[in-house]
């Protein structure tokens, strides 16, 4: 199974602190991966490194066997990478469906002059975009909030909106940064179902999560971080029973 993403000796230092140190792992196509670890383990730093928001201090990241060093997030998006954010980054100045439509940006006719003159290709593209965005909003369970303003939507709804936006780009590899944060047990379960459906559509999903029930329920593969280093990697059951993992979380068995 070819790896869709591969890291070698990935390191990120801030000042004197190594947020991520000497991390090597790979993500296989078509699986649902999770990255877990205690607070401060470097999960968010890692996801920011992988999605181009931070540049590695050392080490390499290869996406579909091509080096991604120095690529900005928008360039990575062109290579099929997508993500959602822990601290919701929804565009409050646009309606819900417009947010999702933006997600489809790379697939549309983005040229300036045609847009200026409202050529047929632009109009047709926008119609198609709106239809797909509507379908995605139905998929994530927001069918009744298509024209809603984000400021009126609930936290859980906004999380699903971000997911719809990320899916609109038709990514090959999708990073979900703490999708269950702030959700109750029911909502978390619903997100888990959604994640499975996304993976069933052929997207490789990587979760960064705290919620163990969700992680164990959906993941094919779990990577455990501690102090920016890899502590363990394996199936959920393997990782759950790993004594080092247990002691890292509970502080000594």
């Amino acid at each position, binding site marked *: 199974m070819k790896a869709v993403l591969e890291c070698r000796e990935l390191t990120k230092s801030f000042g004197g602190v190594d947020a991520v140190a000497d991390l090597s792992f790979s993500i296989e196509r078509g699986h649902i991966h999770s990255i877990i670890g205690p607070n401060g383990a470097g999960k968010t730093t890692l996801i920011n490194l992988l999605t181009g*928001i931070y540049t590695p201090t050392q080490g390499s990241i290869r996406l579909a066997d091509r080096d991604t060093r120095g690529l900005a997030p928008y360039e990575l998006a062109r290579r099929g990478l997508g993500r959602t*954010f822990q*601290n919701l*980054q929804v565009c409050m100045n646009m309606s819900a469906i417009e947010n999702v439509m933006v997600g489809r940006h790379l697939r549309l006719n983005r040229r300036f002059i045609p847009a200026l003159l409202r050529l047929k290709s632009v109009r047709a593209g926008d119609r198609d975009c709106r239809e797909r965005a509507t379908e995605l909003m139905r998929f994530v369970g927001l069918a009744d909030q298509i024209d809603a303003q984000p400021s009126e939507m609930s936290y859980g709804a906004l999380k699903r909106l971000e997911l719809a936006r990320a899916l609109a780009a038709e990514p090959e590899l999708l990073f979900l940064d703490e999708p269950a944060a702030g959700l109750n047990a029911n909502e978390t379960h619903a997100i888990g179902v959604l994640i499975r459906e996304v993976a069933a559509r052929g997207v490789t999903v990587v979760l960064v999560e705290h919620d163990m029930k969700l992680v164990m329920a959906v993941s094919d593969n779990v990577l455990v971080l501690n102090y920016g280093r890899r502590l363990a990697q394996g199936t959920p059951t393997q990782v759950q029973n790993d004594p080092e993992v247990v002691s890292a979380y509970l502080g000594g068995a």
Partner: protein
Amino acid sequence: MFAEFMQYLFSGLTAGSTYALVALGFTIIYNASHIINFAQGEFLMIGGLGSVMLMQYGLPMPLAIIGAIALAVAAGILIEKLAIERAGTNDIVPLIIITIGASLFLRGGAQFFWGKSIHALPAFTGNTPIHVAGATILPQSLWVLGVGAIVVCLLAWFFKRTLIGKAMLAVSHNPNAARLVGINPRFILMLSFALAAALGAIAGAVAAPVTLTAYDVGVMLGLKGFVAAVLGGLGSPLGAVAGGLLLGIMEAFTAGYISSEYKDAVPFVIVLLVLFLMPSGLFGSRATERV
């Protein structure tokens, strides 16, 4: 040659001293709230022009100056209370526009009530030039430098040694934490505006005999003071002073050695260079957004 150099140095330091005080005013408000007060220059204008006007109404000079400072402080507090606080937003662009509006309002008010003419405040200790190292310096320039130095020392003492000063520093570092220990950021903000206004007015009054004063004198001074603050590093008081003096000197040397016509362009070329190459300035620090 040397005399010429000293002459430019003195005039640069004198102008720079004024810029430094304006820059300090910006810094104090910025530290309390991250707001850039585009009306800062107007406080200077009120200090200078206000003193002249109050003297015309019959007040002796010292009282006129104190009155002008009080006027500026009142204006500052009103801006904070009626405009900034009412806006209830932390968005940069609206706040910038509000302070621009305040600046226009104050300038328009000065124009309406005090007219458009240029005035001079009498020099504090006469006009006999003093000769130092081959250059001539006006006594008033010494006043500008001296008052500037004293004010900076007083401010340093205020921030380091008094409880209120330390509270202001606390708010600039972490408003929420400050709130938790009982400091009211709104009060501190009001105090910042008052302090910045006082600083501006003092600088304006002291410089008025040298630079003359009119209703629109605040525009360029405000802008140059802001450039000085950015040059020194927005948020750093030391940077504000250093930036101000440096800016004054660079202006003077440009006027003297390169081209006197482009003297006014110096601050704006500097600000573009700083913003492009070194946005955190000489002494400032840069924060990053957490995603």
